[in-house]
């Protein structure tokens, strides 16, 4: 039973990593930029949700929707102000700029909301479902169900909508997409809004499990590992990588000496990079002249 219990908590933790990794992958898929501040955007989303629900007293669902809208706006603003001038610059510069963005978001959150951990009052808190001996909290179920729904929606979006296909085109060849009449810049704005909205959802889903503080965004680094393990640029890969890392982490915490739980994500990442650098779901091909 212990194993099953660990597995469930591993899956729900993995879903969190997967959700953040989804944000990475989305931006990468559409703009070929790597957003290192994704974890910090999740942090910001959680804080905004805290403001709406706990300070302004919105009902939970309306608070969630308002948060998603607010974060989408933040995403567009970030893209317009910081990343629009970086189109056409080397990827390294973009990586650095998002690292800087992460620092700024952390400082802003610390300035506005302070450094003490906060928690969001959620209608799901405290409830437990029992399957035999295994107890699963409502919040864990919410994370798993929310993740599945989001993944499905994203998959359908990229597969069947005009905008989704336009986004893929913009990522594969910016100039050619432009010539085909795709408004590449506007597509980039939309993708940042989408990714920020996903980060906000992840933040609200995680908030009942881990408290909210300005440093919670560091979980983003593990999510990054998840995205790479899954093969950067693949949505199902991001989820698979997140689940793998979440589950292994839980088991490493129980069966291996201390210290392994914290590093297991990175050990998996390094092993993966040694053995199969293109990830589980490979989307890359070797560069040809």
């Amino acid at each position: 039973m212990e194993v099953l219990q660990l597995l469930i908590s591993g899956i729900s933790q993995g879903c969190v990593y997967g959700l953040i990794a989804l944000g990475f992958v989305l931006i990468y898929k559409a703009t070929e930029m790597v957003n290192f501040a994704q974890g910090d955007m999740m942090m910001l989303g959680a804080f905004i949700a805290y403001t709406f629900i706990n300070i302004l007293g919105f009902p939970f669902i309306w608070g969630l929707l308002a948060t998603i809208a607010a974060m989408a706006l933040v995403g567009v603003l970030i893209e317009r102000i910081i990343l629009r001038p970086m189109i056409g610059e080397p990827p390294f510069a973009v990586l650095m700029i998002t690292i800087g963005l992460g620092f700024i978001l952390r400082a802003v959150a610390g300035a506005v909301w302070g450094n003490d951990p906060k928690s969001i009052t959620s209608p799901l808190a405290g409830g437990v479902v029992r399957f035999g001996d295994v107890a699963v909290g409502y919040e864990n179920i919410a994370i798993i169900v929310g993740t599945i729904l989001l993944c499905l929606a994203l998959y359908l979006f990229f597969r069947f909508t005009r905008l989704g296909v336009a986004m893929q085109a913009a990522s594969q060849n910016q100039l050619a997409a432009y010539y085909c009449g795709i408004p590449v810049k506007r597509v980039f704005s939309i993708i940042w809004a989408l990714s920020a909205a996903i980060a906000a959802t992840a933040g609200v889903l995680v908030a009942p499990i881990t408290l909210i503080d300005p440093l919670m965004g560091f979980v983003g680094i593990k999510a990054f590992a998840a995205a790479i393990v899954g093969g950067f640029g693949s949505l199902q890969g991001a989820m698979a990588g997140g689940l793998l890392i979440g589950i292994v982490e839980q088991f490493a915490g129980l069966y291996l000496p201390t210290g392994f739980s914290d590093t297991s994500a990175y050990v998996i990442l390094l092993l993966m990079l040694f053995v199969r650098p293109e990830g589980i779901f490979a989307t890359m091909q070797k560069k040809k002249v």
Partner: protein
Amino acid sequence: MRFLFKTNYRQDVRLFKHNGQRFWYSLLLAGVLLAPLLMDEFYLGELALVYIYAIAGIGLMLLVGYTGLVSLGHAAFLAIGAYSHTWFLAHGWPFPLALLKASLITALVGAIVGLPAMRMTGIYLAIATLAFAVIVEQVIVHWESVTGGFRGMLVPQAQFLGLDLSGSTAFYFLCLFILLICLLLALNILRSPTGRAMTAVRDSEISAQSMGIHLARTKSIAFAISAGFTGLAGGLLAHKMGYLAPDAFTILISIQLLLMVVVGGLGSLHGVIYGAIFIGLLPQGIALMRDYLPPAVSQIPGLEPGIFGFIMILFLIYEPLGIYGRWLKIRQYFELFPLYRKSTHKRQKSYLRTERMR
């Protein structure tokens, strides 16, 4: 404007291109040698710290600026250098040998980290080095018999041939001396075939390979050299800190080092020095600024990294060539006056074409 008339291939590898450079560099050398007479102890210590940053920066610049490999894990090399230097000192090795061995060990670790770099580029490599840094941090915490774990490790006083090197003036000259050696080493590496190969790999891996450059070897060597320099800086930094603890070498330090080479100017050793001065003096500047700000603003936790991030963004958007690039432009403006055209330095944008097939 100065025109160099080259009549000999050897002129291309000369350290000083013309007498003007010789004059200005000797003036600079005289200035830093006389600095202890003019400055009080606190600023001398800060200047020594700038030199240590510069040594680490040379290492990172060789990797990021000249070989084109981005590392987010250089704090780990700094930590390995610091810990191994301290360990050797504590076990009775003389100071120079301990420092040298620490540097060599770090270089060895760097070479091992560099091996998988053959298969990775860009973002993947950055993340792999980040993962490496996190693992090193955990190893330091848990390997208590060597590193002291969370209790930390006291750094013995630096002594050599009965000379006490821990006084601020002596330590200043020690750092200056090592920095000069490192600069000379780096310059020599860069004008040797190894250094040229590194630059070729940065500019285009495919064309470098077709010119007969062994990619894996070049990258691995670049990592080893880079780690060696950074380990050396780590050894000196250990003396500066006096007490080693695992939380002194976090990812923030790695990013600070990266910020240093970006702000200074990628792809030039001048940039390292400018960047080191910038990084070394910025905390002082922020501390000064705090006095003038209302307390509600100056007490913000994480203000310093926030300002770091802000400056990094400004530089990347408006001056990707860093302080050194800006200086070159200003100089050219006056050299060409009144014919300078802004579009001379227009950045070429390259629009992306992915290698992803799905």
